[in-house]
């Protein structure tokens, strides 16, 4: 559909007003909300994610594209709920306790929302208990944790331990990221995935949700 392509292109340009208007028109044309979401908004956000990963664009372009995405998403949300269409899955994210760095985590949140996941962002300085409690209560399938300080990384292992204690490991998957982390660290604490950047985080979460 031509209009979906236009939505994707306007989103990539970060043109929130056009995305709002085009989404409105697409809804008026009786296109299914799921189609508009998948082939308009998410298709555009996927291209942005790829370009960011390849350093073809930088953070400002991603932030503007995300704003444009919300301009379309806000109109689609009530329709998606009415049609009983579920999101791709719920994920709880946050920067771990003791860490107040949240630009990386925010970026991951934007990209995950852009990919169609329902994101519960607990913000920064989040305790292990809070991660597990929220994920359990909200029926989230994945917990995503970010740290920029090496000193805060132990909170991540506390989350994986808590999940084990409460026999939730396997039901609730974990993914970790942040500058000082590595695949080895993720493995050593029993996390289910490690992502070195926001685009990789989206790929990993998709796989974790399917498992």
């Amino acid at each position, binding site marked *: 559909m031509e209009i979906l392509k236009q939505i994707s292109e306007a989103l990539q340009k970060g043109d929130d007003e056009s995305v709002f208007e085009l989404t409105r028109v697409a809804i008026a044309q009786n296109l299914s909300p799921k189609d508009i979401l998948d082939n308009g908004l998410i298709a555009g956000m996927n291209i942005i994610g790829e370009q960011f990963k*390849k*350093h*073809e*664009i*930088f*953070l*400002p*372009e991603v*932030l*503007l594209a995300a704003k444009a995405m919300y301009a379309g998403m806000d109109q689609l949300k009530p329709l998606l709920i009415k049609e009983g269409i579920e999101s791709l899955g719920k994920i709880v994210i946050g920067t771990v*306790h*003791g*860490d*107040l760095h949240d*630009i990386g985590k925010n970026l991951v949140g934007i990209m995950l929302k852009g990919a169609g996941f329902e994101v519960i962002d607990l913000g920064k*300085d989040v305790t292990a208990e809070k991660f597990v409690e929220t994920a359990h209560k909200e029926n989230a399938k994945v917990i995503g944790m970010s740290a920029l*300080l*090496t*000193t*805060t*990384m*132990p*909170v991540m292992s506390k989350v994986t331990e808590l999940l084990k204690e409460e026999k939730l490991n396997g039901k609730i998957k974990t993914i970790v990221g942040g*500058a*000082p*982390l*590595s695949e*080895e*660290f993720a493995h*050593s604490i029993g996390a289910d995935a490690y992502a070195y950047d926001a685009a990789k985080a989206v790929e990993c979460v998709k796989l974790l949700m399917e498992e």
Partner: protein
Amino acid sequence: MKPILERLKNGEILVADGAIGTMLIKKGLKPGDCPDAISLTKPEILKEIAQQYFDAGAEIIQTNTFGASPMKLADYGLEDKTEQINAIAVSCVRKIVGDQAYVSGSCGPSGKILKPYGDAEPNEMYHGFERQMKALIEAGADIICVETMTDLAEAILAVKAAKAVSPQTPLMATMTFDETPKGFYTIMGVSIEDAAAGLQKAGADIIGSNCGNGIENMIKIAKKFKKFSDVPIVIQSNAGKPETIGSELIYPETPEFFAEKTPELIEAGVSIIGGCCGTTPEYIRAIRNVVD
């Protein structure tokens, strides 16, 4: 002490200090603590660190005020202490170095993203920086160092704020670049050419780069800065891209490696050489020996 800009003009190479954050952690800074609040809780630690860098031969010693703008302190509910935190940090370094080294008032990013990409109002951010600059300069900082910036618009606000408070106080401004297939850019997409032009136009007296991914990239960055600058260049490299071994963070580059690479920085035209994350007084001593 001769004015710093005069010495640089005469072609002198000056040595700056290394990391503070990683030193604070070694001295017991706990996760979740505000690093800048050490001014209020354990100022003696700030003197110890300044002493170590001074003894290693640094002539420019930074204050522990990287996150002491009211915008950042608000994360800890400490914005009302902005003046006190900055003033104590300056006086701690001053007590150690006297007039034998320059006290450099550090100012890092606000942690907020400016409109239209984020929600921060430029005017509010400017006044926040102005408040920190006023505190640093009134406490007697010899030079201001705006550092680790990735957004040029934000860096310019900080530079202008400092120059509005005190036009005669020298100012260094550094940004942090990543290597991309298209060359070096900050995560906000600022090129070295744009950074050099923007920072000089805003009034910075010394410009360059800090942090990053190791000293070899810094040599390339320095050459590029030199090409686009009429003012002296400062480089403060971290000790390579950190690797985690177990739960410990290891910076791969050694003081010896820094010593080996320092001549290349000098050759590239760098006037002030220091360290960033992962560097310790050992690295500074190694640079000092080469410069001498």
